[in-house]
């Protein structure tokens, strides 16, 4: 190594200028250009990976809701498949695949393969109709295809049931079991006429069931718990128990008429909805009756023009950000997750800001500088590097089981074992765990901001007779505020993107009860919640139909990245402002 880079030995004092020129030429080796290029290449690779990743996610995230054409494929074995092309790939079919083809098609397929060097292309068709075929997808290879068409009246039907999408042709529209319109065009027109009203009724039923019935159930539950409480409290008298029982009875009786009314209302709405049905025919001739109420959205994909497609696209986006998930989390919206993520982040920053700032103030302004303080500073810095899952373990053991368990035993003993209130993972504990995880970030940022306040300003303040606290409050903290905010935003960005600890202390696939609802106290910090990051893991990785959910996962990923990157950009902008302020404001 050393011999190469040793600069050329000093040339003897030469009287001839050409000798000098020769020397300067030899420096090519010393420039090490190939290695400089290698270094540059490393940077190029890093940047390419970053940009490639972002491009991939944003592209996939944006296109996932765009309605694609519906393709009807007839294969050599006489089967017909109708669906959207979800993936295309080149592969090398094995001999058995070809042998499995009907006699007639075999030779042609072989010849085709021969021409392409043994490679074939195959499409993954999303064929839906899970209730009929027990599968969501079908692979079709190019050599199998006899004909490929885009039928005009092929419908994409998105359903609210767990069976996912339905692909087929509208046949008849039924009302009260009577055929009201026959033929695709007429049936489709009728569908468009009646569908909004049906959806309206579905929403009403939903509202009645969740809000109205939910309120009644909550009241009854409360009364029941009061009875349990009276029974189990040590030293309670039998009369108290009696009173609680009577109250429970009273609540049940007083709510019974309302319950009855709501149930009747629901029944009538559902009966009305059951009247309207659309009969669809699949590509292979099977018929299926779909009540209008299970149809969330339907469109004849091949008839749509650009604006029609845009309409479907935008309506899917709106559903995505505003509705609840359907089809076992693979379709629909992520509103609960958006809400859960934001609420948790806000709760976390409420917890992390005061403590982080106070700790930083202590370290920077009050603690006597010395070995101990720098040791503590190193320790705090290092905690930022401790794996988040470790904090998750701590949160579960300490917050959920130890603290939450004690709270339950002290205040909620009457709920009985197995009905934990605070003794189980929930939003409060998740926020506190993440606060602990991110507090070093705030401490470090605040300390830096405090250190950046010029000494002259403090001295000026002291010279005017201000006390230490007055100086901190009036002079130091306002100047350090942008830095503190930067720290808090960075902490929020880190917290919003963390998933591993949440898997232990708070998230659930389907949140059992909503964290926010219309019942007192409106925000239920003891309940578990949905989280965008966890949804990525759960839907993209653990759900049975993760293939169908993949586009949705890309969109969720995009949303999460936008959230986190937005917070980070905000922090960077603040940091920039802070710097420029000081560049101008020093004296």
């Amino acid at each position, binding site marked *: *190594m050393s011999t*190469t*880079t040793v600069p*050329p030995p000093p040339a003897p004092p030469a009287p001839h200028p050409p000798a000098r020129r*020769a*020397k300067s030429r030899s420096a*090519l*080796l*010393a*420039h*090490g*250009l*190939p*290695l*400089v*290029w*290698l*270094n*540059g*290449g*490393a*940077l*190029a690779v*890093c940047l390419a*990976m*970053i940009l490639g*990743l972002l491009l991939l*996610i944003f592209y996939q995230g944006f296109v996932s809701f765009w309605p694609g054409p519906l393709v009807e494929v007839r294969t050599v074995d006489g089967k017909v498949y109708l669906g959207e092309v979800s993936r295309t*790939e080149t592969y090398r079919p094995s001999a058995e695949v070809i042998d499995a083809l009907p006699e007639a098609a075999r030779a042609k397929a072989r010849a085709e393969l021969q021409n392409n060097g043994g490679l074939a292309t195959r499409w993954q068709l999303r064929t839906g109709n899970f209730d009929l075929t027990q599968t969501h997808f079908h692979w079709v290879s190019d050599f199998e295809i006899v004909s490929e068409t885009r039928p005009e009246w092929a419908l994409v039907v998105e359903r609210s049931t767990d069976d996912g999408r339905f692909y087929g042709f509208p046949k008849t529209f039924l009302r009260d079991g009577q055929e009201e319109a026959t033929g695709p065009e007429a049936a489709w027109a009728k569908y468009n006429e009646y569908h909004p009203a049906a959806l309206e009724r579905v929403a009403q039923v939903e509202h009645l069931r969740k809000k109205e019935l939910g309120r009644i159930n909550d009241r009854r539950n409360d009364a029941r718990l009061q009875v349990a409480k009276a029974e189990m409290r040590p030293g309670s008298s039998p009369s108290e128990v009696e009173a609680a029982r009577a109250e429970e009875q009273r609540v049940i009786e007083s709510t019974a008429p309302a319950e009855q009314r709501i149930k009747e209302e629901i029944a009538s709405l559902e009966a009305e909805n059951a009247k309207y049905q659309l009969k669809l025919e699949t590509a292979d001739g099977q018929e299926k009756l779909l009540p209008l109420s299970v149809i969330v959205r339907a469109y004849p994909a091949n008839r749509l023009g650009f604006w029609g497609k845009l309409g479907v696209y935008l309506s899917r986006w709106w559903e995505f950000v505003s509705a609840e998930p359907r089809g076992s989390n693979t379709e629909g919206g992520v509103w609960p997750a958006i809400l859960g993520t934001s609420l948790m982040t806000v709760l976390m920053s409420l917890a992390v800001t005061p403590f982080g700032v106070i*700790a930083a103030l*202590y*370290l920077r302004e009050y603690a006597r500088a010395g070995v101990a303080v720098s040791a503590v500073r190193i*320790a705090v810095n290092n*905690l930022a590097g*401790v*794996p988040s*899952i*470790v*904090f*998750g*373990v*701590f949160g579960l*053991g*300490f917050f959920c*089981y130890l603290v939450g368990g004690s709270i339950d035993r002290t205040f909620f003993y009457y709920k009985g074992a197995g009905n934990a209130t605070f003794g189980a993972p929930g939003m409060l504990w998740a926020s506190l765990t993440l606060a*602990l995880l991110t507090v070093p970030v705030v*401490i470090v940022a605040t300390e830096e901001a405090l250190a950046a306040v010029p000494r002259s300003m403090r001295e000026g303040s002291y010279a005017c007779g201000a006390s*230490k*606290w007055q100086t901190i409050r009036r002079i130091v903290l306002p100047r350090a505020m942008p830095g503190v905010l930067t720290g808090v935003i*960075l902490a929020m960005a880190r917290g919003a993107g963390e*998933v*591993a600890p949440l898997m232990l202390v708070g998230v659930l696939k389907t949140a059992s009860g909503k964290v926010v609802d219309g019942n007192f106290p409106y925000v239920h910090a003891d309940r578990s919640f949905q989280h965008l*990051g966890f949804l*990525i*893991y759960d839907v*993209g*990785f653990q759900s049975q139909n993760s293939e169908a959910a993949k586009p949705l*996962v890309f969109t969720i*990923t995009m949303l999460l*990245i936008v959230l986190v990157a937005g917070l980070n950009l905000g922090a960077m902008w603040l940091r920039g402002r802070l710097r420029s302020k000081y560049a101008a404001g020093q004296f």
Partner: protein
Amino acid sequence: MQPTRSFTGHSRRRVSRFSVRLGEFLSRWLITVGGIGTIAAVIAVGVFLVWVAAPLFRPITVTLGKPVPVAAPGTRLLRFGADEYQLLGWSIYADGTLQVVRLDTGKELDRRKLFEGDAKLTACSPPGDTADIAFGFDDGTVRVGRVRFQTTYPKEEEVDDKVRALAPGETAEYRGGLVLRQSDRELRLQAIEVEGGDAVKLDNTAAVELIDLSMGGDEEDSAGFLSYLAADGKLHTHAVKRGVSLATGNPVLKVEASGELALPARDGHGKPAHLLAAGIGDSVFVAWDDGHCARVQARNVEEPKVAEEFHFTNGGAKLTALAFLIGKATLLAGDDTGRVRAWFAVNKADAATGDRQVMVAAHDLGSLGSPVTSIATSGRSRMAAAGAESGHFRLVYVTSENDLADLAAPDGAPVRALLIAPKDNAVLVRTTDSIVTAAIDTSHFHPEITPASLFLPVWYEGYDRPRHVWQTTGGDSYEPKYGFWPLVFGTLKATFYSLLMGVPLALLAAVYTSEFLHPRAKAVVKPTVEMMASLPSVVLGFLSALVLAPFVESWLAAVLAAVVTVPGAFVLGGYVWQLLPEKVGLRLARYRFVFVAAVLPLGLAAAALVGPVLERLLFAGDLKAWLDGKGAAGGDPTPGTFVLLAPVAALVTFVLLVQFVNPLLRPTVMRLGRLENGLIELVKFAAAAVFVVAAAYASALLLTAAGFDPRGSVVGTYVQRNALIVGFMMGFAIIPIIFTIAEDALSAVPEHLRSASLGCGATPWQTATRVIIPTAMSGLFSAVMVGLGRAVGETMIVLMGTGNTPLMDFNIFNGFKTLSANIATEMPDAVVGSTHYRTLFLCALVLFAMTFVLNTVAEVIRQRFRRRAFQL
């Protein structure tokens, strides 16, 4: 208060307002308490982890109670049992007597004959997984019954005054059982219940000498296996099923299938002394006093066969006690020298036995010093107790060979029977005329964990040798395996491959950014890379599992080729650049990065082209088949060895070039012009490339001749989610942090050093490699350490990017399980306070300690570097 004096001689005139002083006091107090509290809370994370994990290693305390005298009927004790609350004890004697006693006073509550009729009881089955007991008689009949405890909660209104007057915790005799007042409102009655005793329909007339029954469960239709040895030397095997007797309504056993076997004659050794039946018609062990044992394979109940004959003891010791551990696969054998060993069958392909299994003595549980009289096993864990003639008894956990307690009955009387209480919270020692209870403190009871069982190989049931295994969930009688190494290994494997990917990229990129990139480009590049540090790792995990893994699987050859072609393309680009005339080169220098970046697609395209071609040339077109040892090229390890050796050869060639070839060339090239010089360099590069290929292939041939095959070590069968994928994604995840810290360190090198070096005539490259990098070395090192810390604890990427199987396999194409992923997957299912729970806390503690140490080292080095850079 003394007036404060200033140097002007004036005393202070104004006094701070009270509110100001109060504010000052309160703020100081609040900030101090809050600050220290916050810091303490953060640091408490580590303390809490220790606090939860520490009980794993706390020694177990066993307290010996006072002996309680019990009336002895005079005949041999056959069986001994107790209820789960240790209130009642029962004994069955050789004459068919059942005796029920209070365990606290020893008072006899009941004594009755279990069987009517003339037949004499000759055999009784040893304790099993269920409450069933089989009895054999001298007329060849077999009866089956159950002795169980019935727990009821009598109401206050029903009981008599004596019971009603009980204070909480007190007991009283009531209706043949014992009633205990649990609380003000609740009473609990514990009574014994004897069921059945009906004869099983068999066509045997010879006296039953040994008998065992193994039932699959307590349900009404569970299947089971009954085996007994008759006086005529025949071993009978029966598949049985529970049913109800039509005549009496009692539960009985129905025989479904039968078989028999004449045991091999053993002259001069008397009759067998022990018979144990395992599983539902699995195997029967018949053992003689001298330790000889015949393992009878009865998977086909109708045709039992002797599969293996072996010896439990050596050196002529006599076998004195034999018992099954829970699950009935491990046998504990005690001999008259006091030694107790655990045996089980392991698979051995070349075994001479009938079923390719051999019995091995896997655990030596030490010696009691005098003949073992009784061995008891737990009904819920792999704990066992052995008692000796001398009155000593020992409690051990078999898997971990953890010696829990060594005690002796106070009166030194020989131990006649032992019992581990149903809740594993006591050992009951029955001597001839007393019962001693040794209470086990179960508040922190983790006998399966010892430092050795965590970090050394442990011989688990059914394994061919001691191994490191992590496997914590299974059925009821499952042997939990808490071997830490597979997890630590997985963590290190993930870290290694991600560092292999991330460190070179990040460091080289940092060097380029700090030393060669145009400042304006740097102002864009740096924040961009920094932004990536905050990219949620779940995103990377999702991409690794659902995008990268399928992509790499179908483009494996091209991806592997890219490792060579992409850097090769950059180096080649540099060589080509040298051919440019100097003026052009200088003018374009500020756009150099654009050209560098433009080479990247070329490198990737080259990989896409070269990869499949190489795959066809070297591996007959199917790399994955070769990795499996299949396909046309599967038999020949040379191509793989060649591919693996190529990077090594490249490195060696580089050193050779730098050390020997360049000095040789220097005098020549000094006389030549720039273009000729550049051409020579290019030729040199081409020659070096050819040399690398040749050298690697030659050494691969040599290694193959020497019998080396890379498959099975660093490469092997391809699994879709593997270390390569994780290495790639986690490398990507740690690049930003390493890059940022490294770039900061490089930029922090004082400008005057750089200027001085350049001023002396050094080229930027020389300045970078000989001045800047050595000065910033400690900063770069600390960057790598921080990256290491990040990689060690990363959870989501490994959770999603690997199959999460705890393997110890170096194969880059195979999965693994890291400590962090293990916590994430198993923690939600772990029961609070259980061994599993605490072991997972130990995992977290190990992670915490690892990252804390790494980060501290990095931080200390970085601070030292900063100080030094400041001094320069």
